């Protein structure tokens, strides 16, 4: 779903439907009742490849101690303009 002022589609939920055409309509009925969005994508669950909860440590923990990847880690030297 893309909100009226949003740039990117964000996930809003899942539903049952026999095919894409009905999935789109079901999504319209379930998720746009309060003007939540102006555009809908539907994707069959089988087309999604997801990371496994078992792989969580290997996937995400290594990033935890890499504070230098955040721009705020670096001090801007005095005298640097236009940064």
């Amino acid at each position, binding site marked *: 779903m893309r909100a009226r002022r949003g740039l990117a589609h964000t996930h809003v939920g899942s539903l049952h439907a026999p095919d894409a055409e009905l999935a789109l*309509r079901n999504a319209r009925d379930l998720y746009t009742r309060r003007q939540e969005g102006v555009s809908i994508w539907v994707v069959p669950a089988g087309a999604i490849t997801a990371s496994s909860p078992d792989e969580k440590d290997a996937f995400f923990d290594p990033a935890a101690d890499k504070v230098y990847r955040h721009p705020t880690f670096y001090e801007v030297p005095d005298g640097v303009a236009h940064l």
Partner: protein
Amino acid sequence: MNGPFDLALALGDDALIAAQRLAEWTTRAPEMEEDVALANIALDQLGAARLLLTYAGELEGAGRDEDALAYLRDDREFRNCLLVELPNGDFAVTMAKLLFLSAYQLPLYTALAGCADERLAAIGAKARKESAYHLDHASLWARRLGDGTAESHRRMQAAVDQVWPYVHELFAPFPGAPVDPTTLRAAFDATVDPVLAEATLARPADGWAPAGGRDGRHTEHLSYLLAEMQVLHRAHPGAIW
């Protein structure tokens, strides 16, 4: 007879009774998604009914508001077409009713949107977008069921055959109305015929054409529907929640 008042009342009653019938599916639809879809359509119809009945009350000038018109009239005073009061039947009958109703309401509201009466024009402009979606929904199911399994085809064809006679009343002349319903039949046919063809459904032959709803002569089903719809208001006048 007062054209704009009679038309606002008739169309308001169409929408109100259609809303009540569709709401009967709530918690009973074949799947949860369809349950919400039918409730949405019922609420669209109810919204149109409120605008139309409020306006009818103002045109009448007798101090009746939307609630007085909805809850304090008896069946002989209702002006809805017979189509909307028919029982829901199975899901195919409900979809056949919705297909024919929305294929009538869409050109009707579109014509109203361009009429000289500003209030009716505004209501038509709002409601036609909703009708377009109702038509899309009903057409989709008619095609799916008609061109589905042997059993779904049999039931969809039976539904179309059962409901078809009640279509003709929709296009009867309406004296004094800002929109002449007889002019809408071509648009109805142009919408419905391709849907039936794609659904591999036979268009029933025209023959028996029951009517009388616009004059207050209804099927026996309406008074049962009204009893359920009106009981709370009649037992507790003015109740709100």
